[in-house]
């Protein structure tokens, strides 16, 4: 009796906190976040900084806490709006990863698809003099179509030639990156910035220098679209026939065949949708947050999105929360650096740790399941060993627990 209480009380407590399988969907990512924040705090202590100041400055940098002083015409709202501006493409990109993931596909080409959409929209609409009311929707349309085509290409390669989507996506990333760089450097380069020429204000999805309450700020129109995309994706995955088929293909392709679902069609569809969402990420990044494209680089958003998707359990609402958090750390990192001198790398480190711990989620889940099993077994053996006193009660309790677990 004593031996057991000694060994298993923390385990029991941990099990109780983490809850059953359904609750673990939330509790495991939260656990990962806590661990990484603690690790980040330790890191700051090692650097001789106060972690409380550090984390406060992260929030201040994103306009969620008041800074001590602001430059003229700027305020908390300015910071918060520019936070929304960079959060927007992250939401789209993470949704793109999630839609593919639901169908059992890993879209590592989000960054490439973003670039393709952003580039095509820049050269077709961005440099035109169309009125804003026409140009802005056109940018979105062009990006969606370009991204969807790039995504379907990966899907096509997968189902026609059985080429692993990870390999083809990585290769296409390089192809997009260098071919587009060639065109930018040859035709569209700005000789001073060495980037592509800025797109016109008419085509930009983020309004610049808008005055609200005496403060100059940006207004990311794409953010509203992103919130809409979260809702639509959620509805699509959980409530539509196509979403159901997509999930079935991802969860068990053989059973999907058996149920009469067209697996190939669904692979194409999932990649096209994923690509379209990547295109939206590209639109809000290259023609919203930025106005030009830097040649020969891929944005990290598409790769961070994989992590966000993981942390958010590939659930659109979870993704909204996870991208919110990760964007705070990446964006706030700049202010943390300038205000209290914690190197910006620390914020990247915290993000990295978060992803690392989130990736351990499967492992943690397996360990929890095993610990729960062992606990059950111990209780069982205890109940049989103590024939008489209170085993009946215990057994009843245990079966109740079992039922709950099931």
């Amino acid at each position, binding site marked *: 009796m004593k031996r057991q209480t000694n060994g298993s009380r923390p385990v029991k407590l941990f099990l109780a906190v983490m809850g059953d399988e359904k609750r673990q969907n939330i509790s495991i990512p939260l656990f990962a976040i806590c661990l990484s924040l603690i690790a980040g705090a330790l890191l700051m202590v090692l650097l001789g900084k106060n972690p409380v100041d550090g984390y406060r400055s992260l929030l201040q940098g994103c306009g969620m806490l008041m800074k001590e002083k602001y430059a003229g015409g700027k305020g908390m709202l300015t910071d918060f709006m520019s936070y929304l501006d960079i959060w927007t493409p992250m939401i789209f990109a993470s949704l793109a990863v999630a839609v593919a993931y639901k169908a059992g596909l890993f879209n590592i080409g989000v960054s490439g698809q973003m670039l393709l959409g952003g580039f095509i929209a820049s050269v077709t609409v961005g440099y035109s003099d169309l009125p804003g009311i026409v140009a802005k929707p056109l940018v979105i349309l062009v990006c969606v179509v370009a991204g969807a085509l790039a995504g379907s290409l990966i899907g096509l390669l997968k189902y026609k030639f059985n080429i692993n989507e990870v390999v083809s996506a990585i290769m296409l990333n390089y192809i997009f990156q260098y071919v587009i760089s060639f065109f930018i450097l040859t035709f569209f380069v700005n000789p001073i910035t060495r980037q592509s020429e800025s797109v016109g204000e008419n085509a930009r999805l983020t309004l610049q220098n808008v005055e609200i309450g005496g403060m100059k700020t940006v207004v990311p129109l794409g953010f509203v679209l992103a919130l809409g995309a979260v809702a639509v994706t959620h509805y699509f995955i959980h409530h539509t*026939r196509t979403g159901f088929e997509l999930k079935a293909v991802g969860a068990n392709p053989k059973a999907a065949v058996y*149920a009469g679902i*067209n697996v190939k069609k669904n692979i194409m569809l999932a990649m096209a949708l994923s690509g379209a969402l990547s295109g939206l990420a590209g639109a809000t990044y290259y023609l919203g947050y930025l106005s030009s494209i830097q040649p020969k680089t891929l944005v990290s958003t598409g790769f961070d999105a994989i992590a966000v998707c993981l942390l958010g359990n590939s659930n659109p609402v979870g993704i909204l929360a996870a991208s919110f958090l990760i964007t705070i750390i990446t964006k706030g990192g700049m202010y943390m650096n300038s205000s209290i001198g914690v190197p910006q790398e620390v914020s990247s480190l915290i993000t990295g740790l978060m992803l690392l711990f989130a990736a351990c989620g499967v492992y943690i889940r397996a360990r929890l399941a095993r610990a729960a099993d062992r606990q059950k077994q111990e209780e069982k053996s205890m109940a049989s060993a103590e024939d008489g006193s209170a085993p009946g009660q215990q057994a009843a309790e245990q079966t109740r627990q079992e039922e709950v677990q099931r």
Partner: protein
Amino acid sequence: MDEYIVEMRHVTKRFPGIVANDDVSLGIKKGEIFALLGENGAGKSTLMSILFGMYEPDEGEVYIRGKKVEVFSPNHATAMNIGMVHQHFKLVSNYTITENIILGMETKRRIGGFLPAVDVASANKKVAELSKRFGLEVNPTQKIEDLNVSMQQRVEILKMLYREAEILIFDEPTAVLTPQEIEFLLDIIREMRRRGKTIILITHKLEEIKKVADRCAILCRGRLVGMCDVAETSTKQMAEMMVGREVSFAQEKLPASFGETLLKVEHLSVNNADGFPVVNDVSFSVRRGEIFAIAGVAGNGQVEVADAIAGLVAAAGGRIFIGEQEITDETVRQRNEHGLAYIPEDRQTWGLILNFTLSENLLLKRYYQEPYCVKGVLHREKFDEKSRELIEAFDIRSGQGEQTTVRSMSGGNQQKAIVARELDQNAPCIVFVQPTRGLDIGAIEHIHSQILAERDKGKAILLVSLELDEIMNLADTIGVIYNGQLLKTAPAEELTANEVGRFMMGVREE
């Protein structure tokens, strides 16, 4: 006792929930061909895996050349000159024959006197010579991926010979071969006996044993039930020992009343992934109100027949009809809609999506129909309503009702869920493959009575089963499949279990 090269005394091996070998004692003489006969799951492979060191017995001892085996590992077995050809070959497909054979015991040479390297050239020569000596001709530099199954098997045999194995274990070596290839293999086995090797042949095919073996041990449900001299025992007697077990309770069965022919299969052929024909010119038909059972030992093509009817594998030839409708080239969904329900053999791989809820799985074939789906939007409340109805009707037990993740349900309840879903299709034609595999008595009885109830409703039922009892209890008509061909089709009352058992072994009518 010294005459035995291998002796196993009171060997018992348990796996969770099953006793694979129960107090088995046997001795194998040097230089004989010793056959191990038994049905699927009788414990033949487990017993030989113990000898080859892959498992340690829970009880009992193993003696090799009179010495007790202390350490169980394949490496030790190899060191004691024991070799095994597994049922599923263990070869590296993009290596050459020689590279596969020498893998793990490469001859080394040194380039320029110091750089170590594998001496492939001399190994090639050695392999060529070895293959010639035993009549197993191969081209040592060919890659495994370019070889057919029978050539791959040769490589496995050569691998044992290269390691100077004296005791050679063959696990179901003929399962993947054509009749001509089987003849050739049996010749090779005889040749090896002539050279003084001891051969252990695991099989469930009587004719092979009759052809080559000296002695034969018969296993049934983990127990050794007989040991005989092959020359003095008829295949009939062996078959009886193998299937001769008490027939369990018989279901109450109403007299049959057959309607018109519903499911018709004409000259069906199916190839496996390697392009090897596993079903060959099979024809049969099932009438309304009839249970047509396909009996046969596992791996004789019966599952492929069912899969071809369901559309999970393509037919290489022949035609399939439901009523007047030809379904040979239809999609899975079209077949379902034309009145086919299918309970697959592997319920977790094919029949269910384990991470989906019970409700979603119960609607897996109806989710797109009204009222569950209207204009592309799912109506979950209708899902749940229907699921609760099915859960009630089929007594499916689960922790959280229709919201339970199927993965967490017991095997019996998973199977009930599949049966519930398929019977709910109300399809006129139902295919059951191994519907009671791995279930306990209660669940088996339940499913049997459901099959009979469907028959009495006038459904055409195709039942594929490895359990002879099940077939004898349920079938109206029995077709025995052997090597991808229907060997015998007859009304159930004209056949006894022993006769069916013999046909399953490939014994033809005299």
